[in-house]
Structure formats: C-alpha cells, structure tokens
C-alpha cells in the first residue's frame, strides 16, 4: 500500500510515529504521530527549548531517533541517512560558512553529489536568488558581513534543489530586507523545483506571509496543529 501510495505521489513527505529524540540519555522530543504533507510550507512555532531545532535535525537525518520511526515519502529511513541527506537540507540557525570562497561554498554540495556539469550556472542561479551578483562568488569567506554570510549559506542550500528545505529560525537577527528575501526565496524554490520548506520560527508576523500550516510545540511535544 505504501509503495503504491508513493508511486501515486500521495504519500506524505514525512510520517512520524512514536518518535523520541535525545541528547545523551536525556529525551527532549516526543512525537506520537505527525504527518507532514508536501502541499506547502509548514512552520514549527514555540518557545525556546520547545524542541523545534531538535525536530528539524531529526527531519534532516542528522540526529538518530532514540526510538520510533520517521518515514520519508512513504519509505522507511533507517540506515539510509547518507542517501537521504541529499534529498533534504537544513539551514542552521547560526549559518556557518566553509573557509573558502563564496563560489566554493555554494558549489560544495553540488561537488559532493558529483553534479558538476553546469556548476557555474547553478551557483550563479543560487546566488541570484538570494540577491547576490555572480561575481560575488570570488569573495573570500572572511570578507562577508553577517547578512551576506546568511545569504551565501542559504544559496549553498538552494543550489542543491532538494525536495525539502529545513530552515531554523531564518529571521532571527535578520534585518527587514533579509527577512523579506527569505520569504520570497521560499516561494521561488517551490515554484522552480517543488521544494517544500519546513520552518522553525517564533516570528509569527513574518510566518503569516509565508505559510498557513502551523505546528505549535511545547516542551518537546506537539501542542496543537492549525491549518
């Protein structure tokens, strides 16, 4: 049934069942049941420490669940993390750039995938989406402002054209202009490649312009879901 569902493209993006995530021995996230659809962006909202970042890491296959399962597009995900990490990418709350030029930062994931034909064009496209000109690629990592670093980190995810883009607090410490850019890019990635964005944020006002579906988290649990 599941395989059938996936073929028809109707399986949810993620199906979470009895999920527990822990740091060391301390469980911090419990989700009994949650389906995330690929119909549009979904936001996770909640106070600091409510488990949003932890959930995003689990959805990015960076954190092995202590218990429970996550299915991705109808398929089990255990022992496939390496491969699945190429379908899903995460922009960390504090973006981190590799110690290389902007171009090499954006090209890194493409090179890792062996997707090196039209590399220059794909890097330029990603830079353009975040409002940076192609010759910005020559800049070294230590010559960027905070806002520029953030844009480059985002561009290096966009270049990958993944099915899922996970964004952790994308508007924290970001000025108005960059917040608007972030919202525009989420829409553009969806139109271009059908990328689904899942966003952790407390910025309710900003989220209003970005997505409808909200999942409210509290103390590592889902409190409520609103459409």
């Amino acid at each position, binding site marked *: 049934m599941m395989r059938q569902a996936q073929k028809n493209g109707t399986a949810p993006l993620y199906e979470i069942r009895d999920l527990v995530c822990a740091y060391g021995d301390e469980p911090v996230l419990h989700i009994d049941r949650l389906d995330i659809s690929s119909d549009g962006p979904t936001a996770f909202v909640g106070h600091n420490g409510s488990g949003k970042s932890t959930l995003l*890491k689990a959805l*990015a296959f*960076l954190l092995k669940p202590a218990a429970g399962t996550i299915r991705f597009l109808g398929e089990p995900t255990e022992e496939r993390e*390496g491969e699945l*990490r*190429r379908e899903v*990418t*995460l*922009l*960390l709350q*504090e973006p*981190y*750039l*590799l*110690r290389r030029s902007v171009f090499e930062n954006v090209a*890194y*994931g493409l090179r*890792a*995938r062996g997707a090196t034909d039209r590399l220059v064009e794909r890097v330029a496209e990603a830079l353009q989406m975040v409002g940076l000109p192609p010759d910005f690629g020559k800049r070294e*990592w*230590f010559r960027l402002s905070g806002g520029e670093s953030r844009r480059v*980190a985002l561009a*290096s*995810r966009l270049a*990958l054209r993944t099915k899922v883009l996970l964004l952790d607090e994308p508007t924290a410490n970001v000025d108005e202009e960059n917040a608007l850019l972030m919202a525009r890019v989420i829409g553009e990635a969806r139109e271009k490649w059908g990328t689904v964005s899942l966003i952790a944020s407390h910025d309710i006002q900003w989220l209003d312009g970005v997505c409808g579906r909200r999942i409210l988290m509290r103390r590592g649990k889902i409190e409520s879901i609103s459409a």
Partner: protein
Amino acid sequence: MSYLSEGFIQGLGLIFTMNEEVWTAVITTLKLSFLSMAVTLALGIPGGFILGYFSFPGRRILRIMVDTLLSIPTVVVGLFVYAFISNRGPLGGYSLLFSIPGMAIGQTILALPIVVALTASAVESVDDRLRLTLLTLGARGKRLALSTLWESRHQILLAAVTAYGRVTAEVGVSMMIGGNIKWHTRTITTAITLETGKGEFSTGIALGVLLLGLSFVLNWSLAALRRRTAS
C-alpha cells in the same frame, strides 16, 4: 658592559658581510629543519587526523602518550637516538651519527608529538556547526573526513609553525647527534653555545640575531594567519 655592545656591533657586521662561518651555520639549520619538518608533517598530519577524527580502542591512552611526549627533554631524545645510531646501536650501520639525517631523526622525534597533538585537537574541536554544515550539504565518507581536515588547515599550520620553533631552537639533539662539526653539522644554536663558551660574543650575537629574525618572520606570518582564522 662595553664588550656586549661591541659584540653587538661586530655581530651585525658579521651578518652584513656575509661571514662564511655564520652563514654556514644558518644554512645547516635551514637544511636540517627542512628535513625534520618534511618528515614530521608527512607523518604527523595524517597521524593527528586519525587520532582526532576516528574513535578506536586505545585512542585515549595514545592521546595521553602523545601529550606526555610534548615535553620530552631534548637531551633525552639525543641520548636515545645516539644509542640507536652509534656504532654499537641497531642502526649503527647507516653512519647517521654526526650527520644531518641523524640529527633530523632526533628533531623529528621532538616535533612529531607537537604536530600530532595539535592536529588531533584541531580536528577534535572543530565547530559542531562545521560537521552539521558538511552533512547538510551532502558530504559523507572520505569527502567528509578530508573537508574536516581542510577546514582545520589554519590550526594545522599553527601546529607546524610551533613545531618548527621547537626544532630551530633546540640544542640538545643537534649537539649530541650532530657533534657541532664546523662546516658540517654546526647549527645556529650549537654555534652559539660554542662561541659563548669561547668568549666570542660577537659571533654568538650575530647568530642569535639571525635566529630571532627567523622566529620573527615566522610569527609575523602566524599573526597574519590568526587574523584570518579569527573571522
């Protein structure tokens, strides 16, 4: 104290007139340190990386051993290497005693723990955001490992410079293994020891100034590097 200032002036004279004895010692120091550093880096960077990146049984005790070797006295290394390469030693047949390669063995033993320990802690202490970033960009296996090493390159260079400092400044190994032979195994530091012993301050001062200059150039480049790493 006038003999000191006179010595200083004469010393500068020796440098600028390219005094052959002085420059031979400098060249020997450079040759020797180049050789020991080449071997040290070739072994130390991969060794340190393995120690810092992978977890395997015995890793902790190995770390502690490497850290212990960081402070090994140069004369102890000199003693051991001497015992190995002297005529009666197991490596006696290679005529390494009183030769630059023999001295390089000793210096490598001094420098290797520095490069291994500092590389290991550089790789171990990489920002968790780096690891997550590489993973979210889809790196795995060999690429993940090599990118981690590459992203730590500034700290590894610091390790190399630190090791280079120890190698050029040491006396024990050069003296015991090299024998301070004029035109052959006499380095800056062993020459200073000898000249001072003879009361020849000017040559000693000339050599000291050159050694300081060498260290200054190194630290200058290091400071430039630090500025980059900080950002």
